[in-house]
């Protein structure tokens, strides 16, 4: 008997809803079968806590007296430049932004100690940062220079606005060359010294609804502790990747653009990261509820690590040159075991996505749904490539 979002929300309201995490779903389907599991479970929660480089914040500053037009001027927060191509008081700060005088990779590999992600984390932690701004001055916005400590209180609005998050599957990075390289998947030792991956596998949101039957534009999500939304397909969203029998893509595929209220977020659920030799980025906690509409949704949400596969890519040559060459495929069960075999060699694995934190995200979302604090939504439009999405 299929369920509807309305029925599930009614159960959330009356406290009868049954929620399990995507990791728990694996065991449940294994023990009871997909039919019984689909009957019993209303929502499966997913979670990930992982670097998501295409993240940033859009904020509107309260006007000083006299007023000032940032648009077309210059602004920095703790010396990290913010984008000022919008209206008088709307600014955007990307997590990869670096202080103007940061050494970057001048002495390679650079350490990238501070950047936009650190500023975002400080703001969410309640700290104030140094705003320095220059404007050209107009009749209606005469102020030309401003130096001030600003925090979330000095902002009328502050939203996290991420054009690409939640990558559905990701490359396993290795290095086939003879020298160490420094990438966004970490330090890669020469001649297959290590293999780094970045996915929560069994808990990874978009891997558990692989063809977007339930996740679409308007889906309410857990975003850094706040309630956020899927607002658009993410940039680079690939609707038509090669897929396994269970629908899960075999390469990095779907992505989502997300937004959420920065003022409702918690520093516990977003963290700045410094990648030696690469740059600064932000680790984002993202959790998506999957309403169990029928057995197919249940079966796919319960796909185990053994049935989810990632491609192995050489980041010394194939990735930077864009050759598209894949060395092989490996399951998340193998990656999670701590070592994989490539070309007959045992290669130790490391992840940039924290599985222990992904569990906490999925667990927290489960708690919020079960306690009635978090209602799920019916998306208003499908993501490109969606199969079986029911439109009104």
């Amino acid at each position, binding site marked *: 008997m299929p369920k509807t979002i309305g029925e599930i929300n009614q159960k959330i309201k009356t406290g009868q809803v049954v929620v399990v995490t995507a990791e728990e779903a694996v065991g449940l389907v294994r023990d009871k079968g997909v039919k019984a599991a689909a009957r019993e479970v209303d929502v499966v929660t997913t979670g990930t806590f992982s670097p998501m480089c295409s993240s940033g914040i859009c904020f509107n500053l309260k006007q000083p007296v006299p007023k000032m037009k940032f648009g077309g001027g210059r602004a920095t927060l703790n010396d990290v430049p913010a984008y000022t191509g919008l209206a008088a008081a709307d600014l955007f700060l990307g997590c990869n932004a670096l202080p103007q005088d940061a050494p970057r990779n001048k002495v390679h590999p650079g350490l990238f100690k501070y950047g936009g992600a650190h500023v975002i984390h400080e703001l969410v932690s309640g700290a104030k940062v140094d705003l320095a701004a220059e404007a050209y001055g107009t009749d209606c916005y005469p102020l030309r220079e401003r130096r001030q400590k600003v925090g979330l209180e000095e902002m009328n609005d502050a939203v996290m606005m991420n054009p690409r998050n939640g990558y559905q599957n990701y490359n396993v990075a290795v290095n086939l060359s003879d020298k160490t390289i420094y990438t966004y998947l970490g330090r890669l030792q020469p001649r297959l010294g290590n293999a780094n991956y970045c996915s929560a596998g069994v808990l990874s949101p978009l891997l558990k609804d692989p063809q977007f039957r339930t996740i679409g534009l308007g889906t309410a999500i857990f975003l850094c502790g706040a309630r956020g939304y899927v607002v658009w397909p993410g940039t680079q969203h690939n609707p038509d990747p090669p897929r396994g029998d269970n629908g899960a893509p075999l390469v990095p595929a779907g992505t989502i653009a997300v937004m959420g209220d920065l003022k409702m977020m918690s520093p516990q659920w977003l963290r700045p990261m*410094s990648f030696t030799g690469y740059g600064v*980025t932000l680790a984002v906690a993202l959790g998506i509820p999957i309403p169990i509409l029928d057995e197919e949704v249940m079966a796919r949400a319960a796909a185990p690590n053994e049935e989810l596969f990632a491609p192995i890519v050489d980041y010394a040559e194939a990735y930077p040159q864009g050759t598209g060459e894949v060395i092989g495929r490996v399951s998340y069960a193998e990656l999670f075991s701590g070592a994989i075999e490539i070309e007959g060699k045992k290669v130790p694995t490391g992840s940039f996505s924290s599985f222990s934190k992904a569990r906490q995200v999925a667990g927290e979302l489960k708690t919020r749904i079960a306690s009635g604090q978090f209602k799920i939504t019916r998306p208003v439009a499908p993501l490109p490539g969606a199969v079986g999405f029911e439109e009104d």
Partner: protein
Amino acid sequence: MPSRRLILSYPPDVVQEPVTYQLVKDYDLKINILKARILPREGGRLVMELSGRKTDLESALAYLASLGIEVQTLVREVRLDKDKCLSCTACVPLCPTGALQVEEDGFEVILDHDKCVVCEVCVTVCPYRAIDIMF
């Protein structure tokens, strides 16, 4: 076989002395140099692990003292800040001795101080900068 991890502070005038050679030859010690920065006319510091018979270790320490080399025991060298660490496991494959490992059930990263040789690879590999060196 007992082993000790020591920090040796060299005064500038003993730089010419082949200390590690003497430790091996005269005191029959096994030496693993963990870190060294010794410059002519400036002196410097040598961090090493010494293993050998207890009596030999003691005589070796007396020899070092006779040269005016100050010896300190190295304690709790690498620090993993559990608040900053998200247990992403990025450090684990790069740790040469297996001191950084993933605990099986919880997927938490743990640091086994007994296995750590203070090579410091993990310090700049950790994207959360949760690892530092304490002397």
